[in-house]
């Protein structure tokens, strides 16, 4: 009986130490990455290339998702608001939900699934086929040349994508609310403008998306860089990127929301 407990506790201990090991490894990696940023920022063409593959290629899924989310918000929002005769506040509800929360968060989740998983797979495959080692042998630091541009591209793309998501959402809500349901167009926009503050809501939403971009970017390049050089290893790393990025986005969202919006009421 006691032997069982001992095994359980030592297994738990090993789990904790292995997680801490990985966290330490991630911290060291992040440090190396920060150091290499200065060099990486001098190679803008590399960063733009990655912005194209991560950001531009995510445009369609982000815009379409934003449109649909905005439409759903309009439908659900109207259903609740009209019970209290406040249907004209639909614009406010939709805009605040999107700009403060859904825009940054859902965009980050979509980005993690689409772009970041691809980055992880790409870097993992470069490691498995010894391309990173070859680069290292040619006296080119793979971290500044391969890893850093992809990391920076995530940070750069995220706020633009979040803005596009929110805009598409508002337009979608307008289509449903004003055009289909028949809410007054003027009331829709004026109430929205009266209650959405650029500094508190819009800017904070953008700050959120930058923070999410940093987190998702870091996780995706880390998992790819340390992926086991096998097919299974890369598959595992890609899954880890999506899962851990998503969880980190949701956790950071909680922290940021509390920090930013708690003092309002």
């Amino acid at each position, binding site marked *: 009986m006691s032997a069982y407990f001992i095994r359980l506790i030592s297994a738990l201990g090993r789990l904790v130490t292995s997680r801490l090991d990985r966290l330490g490894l991630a911290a060291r990696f992040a440090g190396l990455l920060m150091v290499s940023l200065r060099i990486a920022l001098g190679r803008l063409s590399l960063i733009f290339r990655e912005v194209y593959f991560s950001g531009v290629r995510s445009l369609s899924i982000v815009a379409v998702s934003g449109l649909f989310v905005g439409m759903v918000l309009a439908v659900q929002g109207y259903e609740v608001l009209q019970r209290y005769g406040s249907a004209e506040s639909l614009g406010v509800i939709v805009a605040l939900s999107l700009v403060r929360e859904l825009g940054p968060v859902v965009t980050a989740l979509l980005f993690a699934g689409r772009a970041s998983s691809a980055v992880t797979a790409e870097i993992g*495959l*470069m490691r498995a*086929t*010894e*391309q990173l*080692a*070859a*680069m*290292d*042998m*040619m*006296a*080119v*630091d793979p971290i500044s*040349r391969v890893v850093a541009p992809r990391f920076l591209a995530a940070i750069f793309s995220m706020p633009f994508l979040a803005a596009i998501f929110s805009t598409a959402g508002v337009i979608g809500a307008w289509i449903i609310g004003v055009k289909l349901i028949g809410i007054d167009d003027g009331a829709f926009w004026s109430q929205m403008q009266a209650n959405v503050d650029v500094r508190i809501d819009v800017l904070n939403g953008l700050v959120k998306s930058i923070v999410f971009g940093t987190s998702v970017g870091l996780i995706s390049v880390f998992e790819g860089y340390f992926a086991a050089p096998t097919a299974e290893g890369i598959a595992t790393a890609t899954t880890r990127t999506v899962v851990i990025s998503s969880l980190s986005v949701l956790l950071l969202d909680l922290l940021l929301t509390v920090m930013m919006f708690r003092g309002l009421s």
Partner: protein
Amino acid sequence: MTSFHESEMIALKDVCFSYADRPILNGIDLTIKRGEIIAIMGGSGGGKTTLLGLIAGRLKPQSGSVLVNGLEVPKLRQTELYGLRRKIGMLFQFGALFTDLNVFDNVAFPYREQTNLPEEMIRTLVLLKLEAVGLRGAKDLMPAELSGGMARRVALARAVALDPSVMLYDEPFTGLDPISVGIIGRLIKRLNRALGMTSVIVTHDLNETLRLVDRVVVLSQGKIHRDMAPEEIRSTDDPFIRQFADGLPDGPVPFHYPGRDYWSELMGQ
């Protein structure tokens, strides 16, 4: 500061290396002179690729010294190590070409990253190197469109782009058809002579290798088993080398993986 002789390009003195508590190299003493081509052979996992890693500074030995052109490689800092690596070229087992660049850009990579040469000059140099390996016509292809042998030749052109003094080859013949093997072998010899390099080839392929090299170093159990001229390999009666050279299934390297007694395992005892 260990003693250094002018003619020695690479010198390993009493090098020990273990990986995750498993000893791989156990007191290696090896000197390679300028201009030599040597082969490193031995069983799988015997430490051959580890030696290349030590010479290139990608691995640090637990003890002993690794000298390349008089420099103590394990003690070099990052910038100095990168400076040394500009003079060392490495051909990886499957080429390790950058899959997002075409053949031309792959070979141009070291020039664009390490030099400030203008594009026209780089173009000329790349074409020269590609011509030397016979693939100038393939310059616009992507690595995915190349056969194994072609990919390795492009990788070779890329590795010698900056005219290194030392070339390291990690199993350059593995998995190639006989024609490609012959081509690569000839290229290794020609480049070594033309550029005055020192080459270290890790390989399993005896036939092609014995034609190229000045010396063969055979590793066994973390030590240098024998260091001899290629002709001697064929005629020696050392059992380990004989098993290797003749491809015998059993000998000093056992056929059976260590396990329980056959009869008792079958009988379920």
